């Protein structure tokens, strides 16, 4: 039961994060629409540079209400989109 719930949460979170990602992508790339994102997509190859990712994390804080990079005691830098989603899931304060 719990497993299904967390799986659902994860895909819900994936959708939420990818929709914010798409908005940031468009705003950073003159309105162009974002490419398809998968769990294994490498963040630095996803069409956003360092500044784009910095903005993504700020927007995610506004959209989700928390910043795992401040919450987590572990100094961690996700490399793929799936790792980013998992980092947000495992550090959700609620």
């Amino acid at each position, binding site marked *: 039961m719990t497993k299904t719930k967390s799986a659902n949460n994860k895909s819900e979170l994936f959708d939420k994060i990818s929709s914010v990602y798409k908005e940031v992508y468009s705003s950073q790339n003159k309105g162009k629409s974002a490419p398809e994102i998968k769990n294994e997509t490498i963040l630095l190859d996803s069409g956003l540079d*360092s500044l784009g990712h*910095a903005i993504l994390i700020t927007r995610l804080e506004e959209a989700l209400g928390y910043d795992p990079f401040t919450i987590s005691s572990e100094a961690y*830098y996700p490399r793929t989109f799936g790792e980013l989603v998992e980092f947000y899931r495992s550090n959700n304060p609620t």
Partner: protein
Amino acid sequence: MILKDRLKKIPNNSTLLISNSKKISRNEILNKYKIDLSKISGARILICKSNISETLPIISAIDGLVDSFALISTANSIELISSLARSGNFEAILCDDNLNLDKVKNLPPIFHDLETLINTFRSRKPPKETRWILTTSGTTGKPKLVSHSLSSLTRTTKTDLKRGTNFYWGMLYDYTRFAGLQVLLQSIISGSVLIEPIFEYSLEKKIKNFINNNCTHLSATPTLWRKILMTPNSSQINLLQATLGGEIADDRILSAVSKHFPNARIAHIFASTEAGVGFSVIDKKAGFPKNYLKNPPLGINIKIENNRLYVRNKEVINKYFGSETAFATNDGWIDTGDSVEIKNDRVLFRGREDGVINVGGDKVYPEEVENILLKHPLVSAARVYAKSNPITGSLVAADVTLTDQKTDESKAKKLLQEYSIEMLDRHKALASIKIVSGFNLNSSGKIVREV
């Protein structure tokens, strides 16, 4: 000791440079110029070449003979290179073939190879010590020329050849700038191999090049380190040393680098083109120990006045080259502009005293962003500040009051964000906006700016 003599101490035929996969030995560097070099004695040369493999034999040939040479990045604009050539009063320019300087007026003669250049000079008295001229970063105004010497640049360089010959340094900086030249000199003087990847390569390709060449030592800014950590193949570099410099290194990035490279010694360095290397910290904690104020570890004095950090390097000439502008007080103190705070036994960096925001190495003046915001009809007052960010160190954020209190807040935020993207460079655009009802004003009626 001049560069040539330092290189002669390194075992014959050791490889000193891997440039775009080609190995270059100590002998090739030392013996490239077999001609009589004495004609160049006393000359003042500006060098603007993109490859270390070309520049290194040149500077090892002319150090000790010429009065001065400047190392200028080919990434600079033609206008800037020309203006630096004039302000430094150089007698000749030695640059890449494809650099379009030929059409610029009022420049000294331009050459592409050292042999041709030498033949146009008449020998004069060589200096006591050749001046090595570098440019400042120019992030706070136009880049300026700073005068160093090989001895001032290598003051903290390790020279143990027994250890050094086992190391492979990866170059991620522009070698003409202070941080890059530190890596270059540290590597070759201690007999290590310097890996110079193609400058235009993506970070992933550079890292692949480092892995293939057994890179053991890397130096980069915290922003670049964060990017390295986010690059999947980076954990395959077997690092023995990771150096962070150029921006404030916080606890998070220090511990992340340390975890990613478990065999590496982690050092963060405080340095500037003007002051040289101030100190290096190896305990993997942000800031530096308070006792550095009393006992500076590298001989550079450090003091704090009104929460501001000052450093003093007695070996550096305190005026910009070719100018009367001093960057230090008469007794040598340089204002770093960094705001610091002492907490327990540690001095911690709190940002810039002038409120300048560092976005991944690019500086942003809050006033510039505020002035743009104030031009928007929705805004009645604005305060711009740094919002900390795990990727770029900080981003630009603003609190604004609206001219009409009834405006829909989320709409206003969206409009102002779009407006800032349209009006400003990417790194200056607002990452976050808060609508507030008012500001604290100081006695002169200005919005209080907190550092």
